[in-house]
């Protein structure tokens, strides 16, 4: 069969995937603490080489062409988003490296999630929780933080919460060595692998009270990527149509028996 048809199809599929990812980045242009995904494509080997079936016979000429394009794993761009002053006492942003730590379920260690979205509030029990999902924010001892009533709330750069002169707790700001171990889970949360969780360490970034971190999406770059992926898709589709016409010729013109 026409090998080029499949190569063009793989190009169209990866272009489509890039468009999806960048459209999501654009949709989250205003999501606090959002980190954009970067896409990459890699050259695909022929199926025989890819699956390690080297004992099977192959077509040496086609194998040099490879198998088209494949989506490479996404990378998350963890660059610093711009800080925006809101003046609200429970809006926190991390300047520099690090993540806030929260958990989705009781004391289960597997349920620990990291986030850069520092819009917090107090729940009905006085605990510091995320404003979006109501998940508790953890302190440096992995415990929830209870904030008493009263004036004079102050959160220092290292995450320490003071009520006047009284120390309440210290918000955990953690970092992992290999950010590739973090998977995006939606709801502005990152799920770390167990290994990354064990090896986490105190982050170098500092906490800024009254600020939020804007989305890391660069709208112009994302816009360009969405458009160029669309064009790339179109080109590949036209090539598919071209090869379709070629085959039509082969069948109906060349193959016509007089």
């Amino acid at each position, binding site marked *: 069969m026409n090998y080029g048809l499949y190569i063009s199809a793989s190009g169209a599929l990866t272009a489509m995937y890039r468009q999806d990812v960048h459209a999501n*980045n654009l949709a989250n242009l205003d999501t606090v603490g*959002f980190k954009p995904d970067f896409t990459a494509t890699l050259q695909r080997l022929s199926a025989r080489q890819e699956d390690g079936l080297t004992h099977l016979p192959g077509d040496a000429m086609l194998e040099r062409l490879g198998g088209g394009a494949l989506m490479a794993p996404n990378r998350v761009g963890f660059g610093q988003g711009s800080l925006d002053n809101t003046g609200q006492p429970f809006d926190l942003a991390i300047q520099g490296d690090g993540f806030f730590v929260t958990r989705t379920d009781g004391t289960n260690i597997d349920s620990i999630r990291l986030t850069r979205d520092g819009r917090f*509030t107090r729940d009905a029990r006085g605990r510091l929780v995320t404003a979006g999902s109501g998940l508790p924010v953890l302190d440096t001892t992995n415990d929830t933080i209870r904030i008493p009533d009263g004036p004079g709330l102050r959160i220092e750069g290292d995450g320490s919460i003071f009520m006047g002169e009284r120390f309440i707790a210290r918000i955990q700001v953690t970092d992992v060595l290999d950010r590739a171990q973090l998977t995006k889970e939606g709801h502005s949360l990152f799920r770390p692998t167990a290994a990354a969780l064990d090896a986490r360490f105190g982050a170098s970034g500092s906490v800024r009270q009254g600020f939020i971190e804007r989305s890391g999406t660069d709208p112009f770059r994302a816009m360009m990527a969405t458009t160029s992926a*669309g064009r790339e898709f179109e080109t590949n589709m036209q090539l598919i149509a071209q090869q379709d016409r070629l085959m039509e010729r082969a069948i109906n013109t060349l193959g016509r028996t007089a």
Partner: protein
Amino acid sequence: MAINALQSGASGLSALNTSLDVIANNLANLNTPGFKAGRANFQDLLYVEKAQPGVENAIGDQRPTGLYVGLGVKVSGTQSNFTQGAPMATGEQFDLLIDGQGFFRVTVENELSGGTGIAYTRAGAFTLNSEGQIALANDRGRRLLPEVTIPPNAERVEISSDGRILIKTPDNTEPLEVGTLELAGFVNPAGLKQIGENLFVETRASGAPQTGQPGTEGRGRLMQGFLESSNVDPTRELIELIRTQRAYEFNSQSIRAADEALRTVSQIRR
């Protein structure tokens, strides 16, 4: 497929629409005493995992990172900003400002308040109703709790910063205490539900009110003759408006790009 991009773009438009509504409401209430600015909070939606990290290929290598596509954005909630509004001097004796945390309690219909019959407000523009009770100076005339009746012969009403209501009558040289005003505090004011008319009602998220005299247990103090102005910052709102409008345009572009891709698909077979 391009359907995902289309969905992401659409979710962006719908979330930004909500944000636009919130900003417009904030700007509309620029001069509403006691109004607290709101904001829409966004979160990224779910991700489709096309390949999980850690999966092995034929020669035993593990894929170090996953492959996933996000599905857009959603509004996770709206949040009121309970920072203090600037004091506005009016000189009216029944205009009260809370300097600090806390809310006035007023009576409302049971169905508005989830059965408690009490709503909370920071808009302290009060007046007297026909029975001499202190009530909100609006078309509803909701009564302040605990109910205080000012005798008709009162010449001047003084309300101290700790909530004591003192009156001066012609036949009395000493000020006479006729009642005490109370404020209610909440653990989580952001959990209060807004019901319009500058009123809030308690919910499970806000916690139960802790009622007591002004100036005690973290509750704010009262200032007579002042109103709390709206805490909407017009500059910030306008910047948010511009940001929202531009983000809206960007998302409409990604919808157009996805649409073009889908059209190409539909036209591939002549």
